[in-house]
């Protein structure tokens, strides 16, 4: 239903050149559209690879330095391949007051990785995010755009078990930021 631009997986390997050409052609005539092009690239591939950034810059006529200026400024863009299941723990104020810190800690303990990292097998990527906009359901965690709500601080294992049952995946090649 919703366009899951947040949900990204690493199913695809290096992006095909023609995909980047198409993307660049779509956006380069519109002034100031670098961020939109990067969004679309990340939705398609899961992250902004150096090679893709170079190709995109070349095709759009944007210096690589400018692309990295943007990619490193905005939290949304990833420069490394994330895990298959991206676990976003909301640390917005409502979630914070209702024990989101504990949720993050128990997930971190369960996965044995600190926040901002992926498990060695690249199955899970654990990250903190600022606000998912589901404050009424605090504290909540979003996994590839599926939201697990009203959690308890100790629910780390429970969330992982749910992921293993639900397998929330999005076919990233099918989805696009715009139409």
């Amino acid at each position, binding site marked *: *239903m*919703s*366009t*899951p*631009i*947040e949900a990204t997986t690493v199913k695809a390997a290096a992006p095909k050149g023609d995909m980047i050409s198409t993307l660049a052609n779509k956006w380069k005539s*519109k*002034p*100031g*559209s*670098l*961020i*939109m092009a*990067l*969004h679309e690239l990340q939705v398609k591939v899961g992250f902004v690879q150096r090679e893709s950034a170079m190709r995109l810059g070349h095709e759009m006529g944007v210096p690589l330095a*400018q692309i990295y*200026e*943007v990619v490193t*400024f*905005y*939290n*949304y*863009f990833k420069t490394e391949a994330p895990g298959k299941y991206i676990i976003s723990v909301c*640390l*917005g*104020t*409502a979630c*914070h*007051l*209702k024990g989101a810190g504990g949720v993050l800690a128990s997930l971190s303990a369960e996965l044995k990785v600190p926040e901002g990292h992926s498990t060695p097998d690249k199955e899970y990527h654990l990250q903190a*995010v*600022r*606000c*998912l*906009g*589901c*404050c*009424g*359901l*605090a504290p*909540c965690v979003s996994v590839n*755009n599926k*939201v697990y*709500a009203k959690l308890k601080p100790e629910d780390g294992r429970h969330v992982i078990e749910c992921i293993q049952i639900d397998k929330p995946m999005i076919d990233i090649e099918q989805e696009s*930021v*715009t*139409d």
Partner: protein
Amino acid sequence: MKPEELEVKAAAQIAKQQAFDVRLFTCSSRGCQSADALGVITALKAEIKAKQLDAKVQVSGSGCLGLCGRGPLILMKSKTQKDVMFCDMTAALAPKIVTQVVVPMLSGSKIEQPGGDLATKTLDLNDPFFALQEFVVLCNNGKMDPEKLDEYIACGGYTGLRKALGMSAEDICKEILASGLRGRGGAGFPTGRKWELTRKVEGDVKYIICNGDEGDPGAFMDGSTLEGDPHTVIEGMLIGARAINATHGVFYIRAEYPLAVERIEKALRQARAAGLVGKNILDSGWNFDFELRLGAGAFVCGEETALIASIEGKRGTPRPRPPFPAVKGLFDKPSCINNVETFANVTRILQHDAAWYAARGTAESKGTKLFALTGKSKNNGLVEVPMGMTLRTIVDLVGGGTGTDHKVKAIQTGGPSGGMIPVHLFDTPVSYEHLKKLGSIMGSGGMIVIDDHDSVVELARFYLDFCVDESCGKCAPCRIGGKQMLTLLDRFVAGKGTEEDIKTIRRIAKAMQLASLCALGQTAPNPVLSAIHHFEPEFRARMQSPAAKQA
């Protein structure tokens, strides 16, 4: 579409709606979708089909129904009985509404209170949570499917635009000024005046921009408005475009709101196809269209010059003003930026009139305000109350207190830019002028309830940490001041603060307020200062004891 066709379309749609005996509106906003609202809708539709009630019962999505903490919510409207709201719905439970409530109702039975599985799943619509609210912005929620243009038109949609098309730009500005509407992004600058300033600037290209960045953690009013009533926001932008003679419209929406993005895209497609956006709008000869740009997770992009940089595809760093965006904005062209909720209010003002709107509120703050009431509140959700309602009424009655044996200690309004307000000041009416006097701000509408088990020291640290993290780094007062203040606050969190630290915090705060380039740095000290001001004993309790100091 010709202007008269709006009435024809509305009448046809209303007739269609009246053919149904029962209409079931399921909230299809992000919160309820997270709790499987779409599964609920599918289950309802299947049950209606199985019972062959398609002609009598309508199953529809809806904008936010308010009580997000109890979602998914279903509002049942019928010809013969009072409205009923069902909460905590699941795909398994929803069909029982059809079998246990709708079917008996259709055969003439009066349902006072559903029993069985649904006994604990109905909400009292006379509860203060619902009864004390007043819907201006949210007035279409629970009446239409946000994804259907015809249903919006049946609710009076695009009549505001129609009226604006018959007015001069100057008259639209005057009408908005007369309504007393102030910018809902938080600063509260009179919208009519902002428009009048932009209108007077000459330019062959002029932009009107919708700020849908809503980065305040714990706030979701703008996202809910975009999701629940996208056409209202589009209509407001069209009216704004007429008022300032804009040539292009831009939606800037945070990427974390995919549903809002999708709904706006869909609504724009529908409006284009119907001749309400694009070429020859409502047969007036006026052409106007929109572009959509996504944010990428930077709180500072809510600041207008940073937002402009972001739309230009650059790092979202603010620049000194003047020149103001009204003179030199997006791509150096005159631009006007308003918040989502502001545009929604504009639509209602034109759909009615300035006097109707100004009848609500206080002397200096007119209309209603949306709040995302969350934290330790019993009722969690999206609320709309008239300006001037006291904080106590909002927190204790609309919010229902904490709902636990903990007591309310304070609220935080305005998020990381706002301040904490302790419970003894809760008789303050909600308005720009009153909240400012208390050292807080209206902000965009986050309202976090804090109870007596929460530490204000740690919450102040939470907000400051957020601002330090989100500082763009361009100006030193914000970049360095915030970081230094955070180090000092960390000492209090660790129970090692000193008297001197409080003085230093105040000094740094002053420098940040005076010298930061943009509102992020200027307001970042607010939560800390208000916490120290109202809860000094809590900070003292976190000071190092003299004995420990000596040791």
